[in-house]
């Protein structure tokens, strides 16, 4: 015991403990500082990556829309024109053959053949086929580029979409909207919302086995809310989203929403059915004045 001088021991313990405590405090502060700094760097890196991903997505969506416009224009200008000319030619041919038949030579070897009911039937069939093709081409063109959306806005485009749905499918589609409340948005926002609505309705028809779809569009707390509800068999969004095969449509919706800073929330309204609620922040007001009619207006650089 006497080997220790209490004063010296006290001093030694004090110095050693102080040094140890300082080192411990330094270690703790260093870990906090270093970790926070690395976290900030990682956050910056993630932001850059996120912006890059968003830019890529935006470019991909823009390219997709440009391609749709190009195809629609080709269909309208080339195929549509040619089909119209074909229809005109067929009409003239019918007129030539049957209305002007007295002028045809009775001795002509083909006259009996051309005047046969079978030939008339074939011509009529060709005429109706061409007319049907023209209608299909117009429908495809309209589906590819929603010109109403550009000119009259989202509400008009959805109304038109529902009208066309009624022609093609035997199901009830209702649309509720107070159009005065919804301000015009930037073209990309309106187009994204329109495509999302299309995707949700198509999903409901294809997968939900429903007979009623209700679409509502309204403004709530500075956000545009688009709600699509069906009375089909419903689905579990978590399962669909994690599945490799399924959920492409839902991922598509999320991609489009990420570009316009929107969110989607899936719910089950009752025992049956599903409900998707899309919310996007309202952009600054866009002119509500209808733009000049340019059905297939090209954006710069669509066709290299």
């Amino acid at each position, binding site marked *: 015991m006497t080997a220790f001088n209490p004063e010296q021991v006290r001093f030694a313990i004090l110095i050693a403990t102080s040094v140890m405590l300082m080192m411990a405090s330094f270690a703790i502060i260093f870990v906090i500082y270093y*970790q926070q700094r690395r976290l900030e760097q990682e956050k910056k890196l993630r932001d850059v990556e996120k912006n890059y991903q968003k830019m890529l997505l935006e470019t991909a969506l823009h390219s997709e829309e440009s391609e749709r416009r190009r195809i629609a224009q080709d269909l309208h200008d080339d195929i549509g024109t040619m089909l119209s000319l074909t229809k005109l030619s067929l009409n003239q041919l019918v007129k030539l053959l049957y209305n002007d038949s007295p002028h045809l030579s009775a001795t002509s070897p083909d006259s009996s053949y051309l005047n046969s009911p079978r030939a008339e039937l074939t011509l009529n069939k060709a005429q109706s086929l061409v007319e049907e093709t023209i209608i299909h081409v117009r429908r495809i063109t309209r589906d590819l580029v929603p010109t109403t959306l550009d000119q009259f806005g989202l509400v008009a485009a959805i109304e038109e979409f529902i009208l066309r749905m009624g022609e093609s499918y035997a199901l009830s589609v209702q649309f509720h909207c107070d159009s005065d409340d919804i301000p015009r948005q930037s073209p990309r926002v309106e187009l994204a919302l329109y495509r999302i609505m299309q995707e949700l309705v198509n999903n409901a028809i294809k997968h939900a086995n429903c007979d009623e779809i209700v679409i509502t569009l309204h403004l709530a707390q500075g956000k545009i809310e688009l709600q699509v509800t069906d009375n089909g068999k419903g689905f579990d969004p978590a399962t669909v989203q994690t599945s490799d095969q399924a959920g492409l449509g839902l991922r598509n919706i999320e991609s489009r929403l990420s570009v316009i800073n929107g969110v989607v929330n899936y719910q089950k309204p009752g025992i049956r059915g599903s409900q998707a609620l899309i919310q996007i922040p309202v952009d600054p007001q866009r002119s509500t004045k209808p733009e000049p009619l340019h059905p297939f207006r090209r954006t710069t650089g669509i066709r290299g």
Partner: protein
Amino acid sequence: MAYLTYIERYPLASFAVVFILAPLLLGWIRYAHLGDAFRLLVVFLILDLAVGLFMFHLAAHRANNILLLNLFVPIRFTLFGGMFYYNFRSAAIRRVIFYAIIAFVPFALLDIYASNRNLSDLHNHLVGRYSQVVESALIILWVMLYFYEIINTMKVGNILTYPFFWVCAGLLIFYSGNIFYFPFWYYTNRWENNLQLGWVEDIPYIVEIISLSLFSIGIWLTRPQHDSIQS
């Protein structure tokens, strides 16, 4: 009366025992959200309180309470080691911790035996000479390795809201504050011819209160999302 006299003579030592109730109470409130590591911490706090109160009782009645402290050392090391075992991601370090726990328990018991020639003489029972120093060195090593893992793997979102970080900070302060003092416990805590160090003897209680405060922060920050390694 004996208790009051003891509190009057050793207020800091008495307060350190009572202060265990703070993290323990928080542990009771947050118990549903606690992961395995924090449950071990709660077990430690319960045992620490029980041992502390019993030692307080014996000290107030002027009876030797060192045996309790000696027996508590391997238990404390096992519980703290277990906490790190559950939190480390590296399998190699987990294995090292596991073997260290297994090796430390007999070492601590052997140290008690070696430090006390006559084990049946409880009146003159002495603190183990080396076990607490070895325990301190190992726990400081686990803490530093854990800090390294945190900054190396970036597995924690915001470290200031990560509960186990505060527990590690508490352990680091406690063992850093005691590592150079523990060797002298053998000479200071004895009935006769003890080494009188004056106010320096209060250092363990001060660092214990600081570490218990840091444990409290850690337990308070425990939320369901912090149970997993990723937070």
